[in-house]
């Protein structure tokens, strides 16, 4: 694969120079990994290849869908995450986003991410842009070996600096870049004209909700909760599909499951731990802003 893509091999060469060879031959480094891959054969093979290349790497869990990946990673707090991009439930990118939002402050450092994909030119572009590691399926041993060397070097550096917080900060910065680059998908994804009225059905009645009345949207399982001043509706659409039809200037994403109309925000309050909470005009609900989107309120 590296031979087929010249710039990729250049990137490896560059990284090889960064990692002194003496460091590669130090005693086996111990670390934990979680593999999220929906195809059983491929998950088993990746695990086997990793064990062969990096005997000190212990695979603490192998999961087959996005939700399980988030859940297990939060519990097991592995050092390294191998995330397939296309998984049932959530994509690998969404898993990374969810983890960055929910990762406890007191926990171990945020895991190092390696994305795994068979083919996804837009995601690859995003990885390149955000300098995130990835491997292509079918996984080539020499490529995986380089990834392992990179991961070991990063873990070693992390152990020396002994600071957990910067790794989360760095991960959040990287993910912001990634989300930003991933949002720049080809035309056709974004709706031509923003939605003006939302049709919410309750029983046999369809209520027309003007988009300007909406305070915020919140993802709830397969539905989206639509909250207006005096009541709320459930609409059957994913937040992601809905977002494509909203005017991004007017509706701000503040969490992976929350989009708020910016005119409806009354204030943004930062607590002692640095967590941001929004209050709304004419509504008692308080909305929390995730780390990934907190930079939006820095200037206020």
């Amino acid at each position, binding site marked *: 694969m590296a031979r087929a893509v010249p710039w990729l091999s250049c990137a490896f060469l560059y990284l090889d120079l960064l990692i002194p060879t003496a460091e590669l031959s130090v005693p086996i480094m111990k670390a934990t990994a979680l593999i999220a891959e*929906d195809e059983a054969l*491929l998950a088993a093979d990746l695990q086997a290849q990793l064990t062969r290349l990096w005997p000190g790497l212990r695979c603490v869990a192998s999961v087959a869908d996005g939700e399980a990946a988030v859940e297990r990673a939060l519990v097991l707090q592995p050092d390294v995450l191998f995330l397939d991009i*296309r998984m*049932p439930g959530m994509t690998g990118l969404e898993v990374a986003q969810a983890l960055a939002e929910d990762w406890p402050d007191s926990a171990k450092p945020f895991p190092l991410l390696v994305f795994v994909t068979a*083919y*996804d030119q837009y995601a690859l572009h995003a990885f390149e842009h955000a300098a995130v590691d990835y491997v292509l399926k*079918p996984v080539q041993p020499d490529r995986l070996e380089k990834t392992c060397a990179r991961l070991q070097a990063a873990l070693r550096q992390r152990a020396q600096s002994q600071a957990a917080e910067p790794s989360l900060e760095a991960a959040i910065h990287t993910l912001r870049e990634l989300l930003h680059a991933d949002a720049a998908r080809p035309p056709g994804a974004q709706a031509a004209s923003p939605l003006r009225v939302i049709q919410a059905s309750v029983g046999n009645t369809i209520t027309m909700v003007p988009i300007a009345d909406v305070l915020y949207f919140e993802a709830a399982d397969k539905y989206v909760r639509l909250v207006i001043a005096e009541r709320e509706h459930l609409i*059957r*659409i994913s937040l992601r599909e809905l977002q494509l039809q909203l005017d991004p200037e007017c509706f701000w994403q503040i969490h992976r499951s929350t989009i708020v109309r910016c005119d409806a925000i009354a204030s943004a309050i930062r607590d002692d731990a640095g967590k941001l909470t929004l209050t709304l005009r004419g509504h008692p609900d308080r909305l929390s802003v995730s780390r990934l989107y907190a930079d939006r309120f820095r200037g206020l």
Partner: protein
Amino acid sequence: MQEPAAINLLDKFSAHRMPHSQDILKRLWLELRIFVPASMASALFYYLMYRDSFATNLIYSLCSTLFIQGLIEVGRYSLAYRMRKRSPDNLDAQRNWPGWGLMIPWIVVSGVLGYVAGRELGDLLTGVHRAPATITDNPRALLLSMTGVFVLSLGITYFFYSRGRMAAMETRAEAAMRSAAESQLKLLESQLEPHMLFNTLANLRVLIAQDPPRAQAMLDRLIAFLRATLDASRSGSGSHSLSAEFARIGDYLELMQTRMGTRLNRRLDLPDDLAGLPVPPLLLQPLVENAIKHGLEPTVAGGWIRVAAQREGSMLVLSVRDTGAGIGGAGLDVLPPGGSQFGIQQVRERLAALYGKAATLELIAASDGEGGTLAIVRLPVS
């Protein structure tokens, strides 16, 4: 015939561009190709009419044709140029044709002026000095001469008119061919979807070490699938038997089975008496692919897919049913992006091209408790 088409294409895309010297040479060559035969024809005409020396007639004819053709062409280009300025979308103007309505009066003007100017030049060259009255003395001769002139002018104009039209037709045919080739390529790309291919190869790579006989069987399925896809994209209008169609769908589903494991349950129902019926090759493939890619693959639990054929009177009814993510509550307008519409549109187009209104494709949310999508193709049994 190639060069005028190319010129026309260039004209179309950059009407206000300065022509390159090569273009100008090509255009002059075209002018020469009508100038020589037209001059010869008129020389012969006047030679037969007046019985003067052929050489003298040829000189006069060359001079007259030069002026007439020059005037016609200058008029044609400048009128078309002005039309293009006013309405850039005018297709005729784009190929330098201002229309017969403007050209007929201009031909008359060009004919008279060109004839008179040509005579003057001819007199100058031959050294003959005739009183201007000599022609007007004989109305019959004048009428005859003018008829010749107009036939000549019309002939020249018609030559350029038909050249332009032919070039435009060629451009259109070329564009149609190009768009057909493009849609064929897009179809092939959607069928040989790289994500599916590389994932299948990744599985194969694992199986080769773990379970060689199973790897071989999987490779055979992949070979059959690739061969069928390539064949179908080359001869899209042919047909194969329904049993062959089901066998190819079976190959694809077997490949997906290896990848998805227990998340995928599949059933193919083909009654024996329908097995021999002809169907367009891989007609159902996009529907099966959509059921997997947009239906079952995104769901954690997976589900089942059933492909069935049955006969209803003179109609063959083919159905693809999955219990996957479904097509959403808001109806078919919000099909997930990422090519599912293309597959459905492609099936619709093929049905329309082959059977007209007699065949239909229906895509509905399955109404029983298990959810998912149901696609039904109805086509006449020939």
